[in-house]
């Protein structure tokens, strides 16, 4: 690649530009494909005073089936969705429900305290409530008068 732009005529800046352009286009095309696949599970974010709630639609999964981990300001939800029936014994007429293992990392608006996390799962909706660490909270500073 590098050699081709150092032709007999020496370095060709226009050729180089052309090459860069085509490489850039390839890169952008690839990125487009990645973003078009929807991340699973879909999440909603809710902001409170010093806490944040992430809710995710995970029908068919109970609290034991979901793994949650927290690092600094990211939350990772992972698990596996199973097929509704034994594949070999039935005839499928329609299959729309998502299937298989998933893992998703969500960036939170601030760092959270991993010791103060509450996760609940009700009717297939996961709710994770996280709080800001005490040390990160804004502190009021007394102004002294002399």
């Amino acid at each position, binding site marked *: 690649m590098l050699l081709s732009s150092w032709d007999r005529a020496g370095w060709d800046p226009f050729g180089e530009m052309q090459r860069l352009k085509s490489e850039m286009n390839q890169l952008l095309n690839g990125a487009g494909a990645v973003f078009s696949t929807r*991340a699973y599970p*879909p*999440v*909603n*974010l*809710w*902001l*409170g*005073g010093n*806490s944040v*709630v992430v*809710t995710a*639609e*995970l*029908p*068919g*999964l*109970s609290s034991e089936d979901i793994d949650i981990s927290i690092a600094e300001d990211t939350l990772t939800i992972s698990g596996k969705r199973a097929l*509704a*029936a034994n594949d070999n*014994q*039935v*005839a*499928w*007429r*329609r*299959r*729309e*429900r*998502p299937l298989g293992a998933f893992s998703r990392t969500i960036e939170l*608006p601030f760092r959270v305290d991993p010791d103060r996390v509450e996760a609940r*799962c*009700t*009717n*297939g*909706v996961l*709710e994770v*409530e996280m709080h800001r660490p005490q040390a990160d909270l804004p502190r009021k500073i007394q102004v002294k008068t002399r």
Partner: protein
Amino acid sequence: MAQEITKLPTRDIARGQAAQSTRATNVYRPNSDIYEDENHVVLVTDMPGVAPGDVDVTLEQRVLTIRGRLAAERPEGYRAIYAEYGEGDYERAFTLSEDIDQDHIEASHKDGVLTLKLPKAERAKTKKIQVKAA
């Protein structure tokens, strides 16, 4: 087999028909799996956020309608800052091509998933016909 008759776009926001819905909420078409074995047609539908008591299933002639009412439960004292899924009710209808034994339909709802086990009526089952040698 079951034929789709719901006219709502997949998972996208669609208004419930004014004549049916008295709730000012979005209505979604829930993702469904349908499979069949020798004796049953089984319908599995994702209805995240719907409590078991808020599911309504009707079978009229051959039209099977499932509805789920969302118990909207928003985190108290929080405001939404980012949303990837919408909250609302679910509704979907299918036309069944088989005769169903209406008295023995089993419905269960767990973790936001509705499972309907529809037993095929006796006369709808495949019968093996013995061929006699003349």
